[in-house]
């Protein structure tokens, strides 16, 4: 995963340059091209907002080499319909999957290790249906230990090894596609918490380790090339499974810095009726302290657009 490196500087220079060329008429002045952005935030309905965010990023071809296999990790762990807010919006998933194929991906694997019966999760979340007609896109659940492989965590504080879905070790491109929701153990469940869907022994995070530290450890070895946070709706209480309060925010937040995306995600809505900052989320702070990204959103350069 580490052989692919793109600095944030490179990323956003090009991103904005492309964005400017695409949507020049919409008033993006060239001076933007010299600026560096950490995040793109687009408001709008699922499909156009996702498309716009991808466009502002400069297209997925910047992240995917032709012929590569792309792993997309949405949240489809619960057999809930999209309106409950516990799972990633199916249209967001399908839009990213389609864009990946268009960007030259050989195949797209939409993968999660579900908590409830996989056939129900695939059906109820609507993700299988949304991706049905996309050729080259496979929606899979991975429930058996034989599909996992152990990796060492050299920088780990509480974990020194972890079994993760083998496909993300074999394939360099991981796009994390979390939904924005509250979580009864970690406060919020955004991109970094979503990585837990890629490990075998989820239970141990709850019972054996400090879950917040373990998540930060996990994030040191699973490094998505891109995190696209689906905040079209946010489950602001009752997470992770719902039912709870669902706020319709119509936001898509994307970036390569997993901490920055999540930290911004914390700020967009009150959780359990209270306002929080990224620093106040224990696992995000731990990830920041591991050097995985920026946490203070007032120091982030953010490109906001409407779709």
């Amino acid at each position, binding site marked *: 995963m580490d052989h692919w490196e793109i600095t944030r500087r490179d990323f956003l220079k090009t991103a904005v340059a492309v964005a400017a060329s695409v949507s020049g008429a919409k008033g993006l002045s060239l001076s933007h091209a010299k600026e560096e952005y950490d995040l793109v935030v687009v408001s709008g309905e699922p499909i156009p907002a996702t498309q716009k965010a991808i466009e502002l990023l400069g297209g997925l071809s910047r992240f995917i080499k032709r012929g590569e296999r792309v792993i997309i990790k949405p949240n489809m762990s619960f057999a809930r319909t999209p309106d409950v807010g516990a799972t990633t919006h199916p249209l967001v998933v399908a839009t990213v999957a389609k864009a990946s194929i268009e960007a030259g991906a050989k195949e797209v694997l939409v993968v999660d290790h579900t908590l409830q019966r996989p056939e129900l999760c695939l059906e109820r979340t609507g993700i299988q249906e949304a991706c049905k007609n996309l050729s080259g896109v496979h929606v899979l659940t*991975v429930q058996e230990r034989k599909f996992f492989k152990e990796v060492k965590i050299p920088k780990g504080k509480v974990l020194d090894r972890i079994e993760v879905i083998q496909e993300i070790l074999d394939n360099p491109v991981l796009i994390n596609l979390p939904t924005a929701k509250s979580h009864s153990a970690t406060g919020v469940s955004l991109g970094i918490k979503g990585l837990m869907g890629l490990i075998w022994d989820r239970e141990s995070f709850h019972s054996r380790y400090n879950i917040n530290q373990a998540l930060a450890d996990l994030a040191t070895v699973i490094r998505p090339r891109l995190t696209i946070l689906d905040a079209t709706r946010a489950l602001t*209480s009752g997470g992770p499974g719902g039912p709870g309060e669902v706020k319709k925010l119509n936001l898509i937040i994307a970036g390569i810095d997993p901490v920055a995306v999540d930290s911004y995600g914390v700020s967009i809505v009150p*959780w359990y009726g209270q306002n929080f900052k990224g*620093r106040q989320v*224990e696992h995000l702070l731990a990830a920041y302290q591991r050097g995985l990204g920026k946490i203070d959103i007032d120091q982030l350069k953010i490109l906001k657009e409407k779709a």
Partner: protein
Amino acid sequence: MRGFIQILSLLLFSALFVFATYKLPDWLFADLYLRLDPLLSLNAIFAAREIIPRALWALLTVGATLLIGRFFCGYVCPMGVSIDLLDFFFFRKKRRENPLRLESTLRRMKYLLLIFFLSAAVVGLSLAFLFDPIAFLTRFYTFFIYPVAVTLINLFLDLLRPLFRQLGWVSISHLHFSQPVFYMTAITLLLFGGIIFLNRWVPRFWCRYLCPLGAFLSLFSPLGLLKRRVNEECNQCMRCRKACPMGAIGEDPRKTNRPECVQCGTCSEVCPKEAVSFSPSFSIGGEYSKLDLSRRGFFFSFSGGLIAGFLALQTPFRLRRGKLQLIRPPGAIPEDEFLRTCIRCGECMKSCLTNTLQPSLWESGLSGLWTPKMDLRLAPCDQNCNVCGKVCPTQAIRSLSLEEKNHAKVGTAIIRKELCLVWAQNKICLICDEICPYNAIVFRPLEGYRRPVVIASKCNGCGYCEQRCPVKGESAIVVVPDGEIRLKEGSYQEEARRLRLEFKPDPGDDKFILEQEGLKIEEDRIGKGKTLFKEKLKSQKPKGFL
């Protein structure tokens, strides 16, 4: 030709069995064979003392038998096919005495069994399932074939997985079927093995001597049109008599024991003179062999059935049924009727998506053998699935819409405080609350601590909490039958409304907040009559936030 039809029938039976799972389309009758079985239908109708619509399908079988004869046993019955197949594999070369010396005595057995089961059913004890071939085979498929098949398929997939990876077949290289597990697999296998083993002495031992369904059909099959005829060419070589798998040919090979003849045509195949034919004929009299049942035998089995029925019903399981701990599937009709109506085919357990449905051994006595119970520690009942009722051939489990099924409360969760990590050890655990689809578990301030409690009126007993409870061994939260709704007819939703129950997946009142340090509420809040929980919230942060 016969072999071909038989294999087709077994394939159809197997295919319907495979389809009996989530998500079974409404138009597909996965329980077709069970519906067509007149013995199961009679048994259920007698025992339940009412007409069961699905059971009336069996009239088709009765009608066809009246028209054609006892072809069901020779061509359709999947148990017959299985016996023939396994006979071919294991006992083909065995020298067997045909017919057996005890022929006439044994032959009565199936009639005695039929009388026994039906008289037990009249008293209200459903027992025919023990010997009914269709129910028997469905059980065998459910508890043995199905788990073994899944194991083998997964093994096969594992073997070929490297190849699939090489070929780049993404989906199939990740394919794995969840392994079903059942109690009573061994006992079911033993019984089935026993039936096959009896073939060692004579072909189709089961069908000749034991099968009560065959006995029932033989009562009127001689009326059928197709009858065995032997012309003058017959040189009495006796080949047909030796070859007849049913032993239906008498010492005079030109005569046929009509009730026993399943029209398989083996006799005409082996006849060197081509003297045997099966041609349509209306004649009834003459060759109609009488049932060779002594009055004594009839009396014994009839009264035996009655006595067994009475005995099986006069047990604590029935008389104190309100005190039993079994959780029945959602939509199961009231326990008494349920036991009378259920034919123990195991189809509901096969179809169960989560594998929570398990067969009972002695948990509800002889009258409850193999009946489905929910083992919620193993698996929960999912609110998106209603397939068990759809496949129930006698509607002992009613076929309900999802909305109705989720209101068919099977019990209520209770917290066993002495085991609960929060109650007994002050640990921070909220898994039951987190997983509950109905927000029926809330944290309440009690005696200075926040404790999980169950709101009974919101709990429909789905068992997610019991299954997920992290306490090893016995769960600290268990579903008990208290509060279950068992309706023979009418709407569960209305009943729930009447009882002021609400199973709605909406945000509950439990925006509870726990502090990292523990569950303790400040001392000064205690003992003032009311604990100001909401005020307290303001100064606290949800778990995971600093």
